[in-house]
């Protein structure tokens, strides 16, 4: 019983962490918290199921196709909902613009796909019980993403430019970095990361339109716990959330589990407003 709570808790935690990284990646270059993060996770599951079960493609083809489609959606989001509101960030119009895009994609999927959960195929056919691939695939995907991003940010020129833009937008622009192109690239990257979460977790979450708002919410918690922009914090926060949620589901039951999760979330945030691993606020005067 403990083993299965651990397995599903870590798996869900890894999915939440990946959505948290999706939030972070978009935020880094644009200072925008985009409501599309969870929808990207939903799209990963739905597109994966579409390509594999309805079109009959093998996973090796379906995965890159899913990631590419989601990356494209990320880029569209940047063009339609992010770039136009960057001038007036303090007005919080991004809340509306990204929300509108999220609602649009959700409604299109609901009508063109289904409002009921649809199957997602087994990918590798490896493992059973608590070692079933549906539990470890999200964890593996999360680990691969974190390592890949670390490599990107530390070892490659593009990655360093990303970091520079994330740390100081104005300075980076003054240095002549192609800030706009980097932002587009980060939205594409975020699209791929979000879709990977949905794809790797497809067997757990199924190809289900309602996963969008769900992941939006639970994917934000790791960001808040781990500190905005801190991917390692997001991973730790995500895994902690997954374990706590699954344990609460079992111990407190379905009604009180979400109450427990949200109460803990609020209490932790109040105790550590910058998140557990976040930097303190900058000086104001």
């Amino acid at each position, binding site marked *: 019983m403990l083993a299965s*709570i651990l397995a599903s808790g870590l798996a869900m935690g890894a999915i939440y962490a990946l959505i948290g990284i999706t939030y972070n990646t978009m935020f880094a270059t644009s200072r925008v918290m985009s409501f599309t993060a969870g929808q990207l996770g939903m799209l990963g599951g739905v597109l994966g199921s579409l390509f594999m079960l309805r079109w009959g493609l093998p996973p090796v083809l379906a995965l890159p196709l899913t990631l590419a489609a989601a990356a494209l959606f990320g880029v569209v989001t940047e063009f339609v909902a992010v770039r136009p509101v960057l001038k007036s960030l303090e007005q919080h119009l991004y809340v509306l613009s990204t929300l509108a895009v999220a609602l649009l994609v959700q409604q299109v999927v609901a009508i063109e796909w289904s409002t009921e959960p649809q199957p997602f195929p087994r990918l590798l056919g490896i493992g059973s019980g608590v070692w079933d691939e549906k539990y470890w695939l999200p964890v593996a995907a999360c680990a691969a993403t974190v390592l890949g991003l670390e490599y990107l940010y530390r070892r490659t020129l593009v990655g360093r430019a990303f970091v520079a833009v994330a740390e100081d937008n104005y300075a980076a622009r003054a240095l002549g970095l192609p800030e706009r192109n980097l932002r587009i690239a980060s939205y594409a990257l975020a699209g791929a990361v979000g879709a990977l979460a949905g794809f790797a977790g497809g067997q757990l979450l*199924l190809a289900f339109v309602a996963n969008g708002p769900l992941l939006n919410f639970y994917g934000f918690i790791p960001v808040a716990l781990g500190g905005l922009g801190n991917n390692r914090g997001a991973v730790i926060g995500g895994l902690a959330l997954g374990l706590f949620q699954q344990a609460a589901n*079992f111990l407190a039951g379905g009604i009180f589990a979400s109450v427990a999760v949200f109460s803990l979330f609020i209490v932790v945030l109040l105790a550590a407003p910058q998140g557990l691993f976040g930097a303190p606020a900058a000086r104001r005067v």
Partner: protein
Amino acid sequence: MQITRRGLGLGVAGGAAALGLARPAIAQNEPIRFGWLASMTGPSSAPAIGFDRGVRFAAEAINAAGGVKGRRFEVITRDSQGEPTKAVNATQELISQSRVHAIWGPTNSGESLAVTAIMARAKMPNIHPCVVDSLIDPNRYPNAFRVAPSNGQWDDAVRRYATDVLKARKVAVFGDNTGYGVTAAKASSDAFKRENVEVVQLSNIDATQPDMTPDMLRARNAGAQAIVVWTVSTGMLARMLNTRAQMGWDVPFVGHPALSAGDIGGLLEKPENWRNVFCVGYRSCSYDSTGKLPARSQELVDRLQGKVNLNDSLLWWVACGVDAVNLVAKAVEATGSTASEAIIGHWNSLRKFPGYYGEYSFTPTQHNGYPGEDVVMSAANTGRNGAFALAPGYG
């Protein structure tokens, strides 16, 4: 046509009221307006989509035959998207703006609870298939009639099957964490306890929980001999059935009709995971031991052939939609009037009205029209053309 009328909005509303004065003169020729409150999009839209097929089929059939005493039968659909606030607006719109003569729906309990009093205030003849017991109360809502079983009737059938056929003395009761799931699971558990059946576990599970193993293990360790489930979430049901197979546990499942939903088939890891699962069904929509439907149901299926797809829906949804239209049409035909008192009065006098889904009987004090004995249990994995085989133990 509807778009322009609504689009003009407020400006036209005043004019419409003025025209209203002239209505009685043309009343005998105007169409019969049938309001249809459907939750066609949003979560759990599958039943409404099924009902809708039946409604459209029946309305077209009536109009093709020249209407009801020469009056066209017009269906006015409003999608409430599963939201009580939208359902309330849509109901008032059907009553006051579209001036329908009767309303069919809503199709889920949350919406129905919100609109029942509003329809009662307008004395609007209303038939609906929602199961919550308190929705039917001829004293408070003399206008509301149910053409499906109440939750109590479902509950009785499930409980009887679990105790009498499956001989379970210890059961685990599960619901999801929606309003319906919480209420239904509690009511079911209470009823088992009243009959001295031990409820070893009563849980409300978050329908999005990815893994049901811990809850199922707990039920097995507590010695459950049957699992009783109340949810419309196909994802949750499929996960539970898959978990049962992985545990190598052959405990029977009994409960909500959604256990037989076609979507579950796709979500199961193996087809045999669907065995030993019994859900609420209806005699009219069940195959007997020779694989035959009742004659009258077969007649409907034949008529639907090629016009309505039954494979991804349920026969009872479609049949019930057909019956809803016919109940209104026959009331107008019998009384020659679309006045609400006439329609309600006619329904109050119905004895064994031969619908396709069931034979409905109403009296001024009994608005639960569906015959309880027609609620049966089906084998969930036997779906064919939207109908199911009777569960073992039903003759």
